[in-house]
């Protein structure tokens, strides 16, 4: 796991007890995690941080966030993180504070990183309607059942997308359900392998 020179510079500042006493250090780490996982603006208004120069604060916050994301991306273990932070001249105590905080937030971080990315339209739900056609203005006495199926879909980028709707006869719906069941069966077989 490697950090850019800019990030390393930020960590060196964070490791300096004169610039960052223990309490602001812990506060900044908490702020970095919260700004990634909860809300971008979260945490920087912590009273423990008010004495730090804003430029330094910004640099260190960026360095901390970079390290968190790199560790999450590579699913780095404690020893890899420790090695990396040791290279930035952080003492054992501060490394441990970071690792504890990281362990607490590891799962949420993994979910967040896993959800970023492109994928085809994702089906989230389905609704259906069964109707019985009696007549239309071109043809009377049609007497045919038909299904209207709507698939609710979500776009990974923008979140919502017009739903996919289509009509089908009972035979066609049976065909569709049959194919979906085949997919589910082969999924089950794959998980047992």
């Amino acid at each position, binding site marked *: 796991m490697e950090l850019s020179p800019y990030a390393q510079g930020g960590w060196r500042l964070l490791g300096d007890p004169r610039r960052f006493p223990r309490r602001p250090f812990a506060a900044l780490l908490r702020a970095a995690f919260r700004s990634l996982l909860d809300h971008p603006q979260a945490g920087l208004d912590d009273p423990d941080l008010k004495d730090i120069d804003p430029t330094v604060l910004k640099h260190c916050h960026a360095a901390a966030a970079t390290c968190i994301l790199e560790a999450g991306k590579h699913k780095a273990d404690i020893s890899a993180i420790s090695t990396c932070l040791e290279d930035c001249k952080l003492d054992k105590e501060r490394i441990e504070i970071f690792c504890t905080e990281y362990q607490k937030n590891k799962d949420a971080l993994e979910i967040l*990183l896993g959800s970023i*990315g492109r994928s085809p339209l994702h089906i989230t739900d*389905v609704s*259906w309607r069964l109707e*019985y056609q009696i007549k239309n203005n071109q*043809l009377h*006495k049609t007497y045919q059942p038909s299904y209207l199926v709507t698939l609710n879909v979500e776009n990974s980028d923008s979140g919502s997308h017009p739903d996919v709707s289509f009509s089908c006869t009972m035979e066609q719906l049976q065909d569709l359900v049959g194919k*979906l069941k085949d*997919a*589910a069966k082969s999924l089950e077989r794959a998980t047992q392998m």
Partner: protein
Amino acid sequence: GRLALEQLRRGAAPRACETAARKLNIGVDIIQHGVEGLVYLLTESSKLMISEVDFQDSIHVLGFSDELNKSLLQLYLDNRKEIRSILGELAPRLPSYHSLEWRLDVQLASRSLRQQIKPAVTMKLHLNQNEDQTAQVLQTDPATLLHLIQQLEQALGEMKMNHCRRIVRNMK
């Protein structure tokens, strides 16, 4: 009769009417009106799916000979099914299901996260809309797939329920 059916299948054919007019030695207009009248008679009868008796009663008022009435009735009965299927295509329609292809995928890594195991089902849904075929690529996760199957099986089961059966019986 033949001209009327061809008009229904393919639209008006003025040259065929001219040929017929020449052969029978009457004006083209008369032929065309005759053909249009026949087309109207056949489509309205087929649309309403009227019985033989009702058809005979309706044309009786035109005062044709018995033989002509019989051939008209025969023309109606022979071609009713085809005319109804042509009319059926004119009705308003939503995109309709054609077929579905599916594929099982496992995502192993992405730019933002390495070492993943994320199963997904990718599908290509083929739909028909007014003679065009569209294909849409969709994806879902295993849990949603099972939910979809359960919901759609419920939908299929509805037709067999007593409520639907009763309505279908009473509508006929």
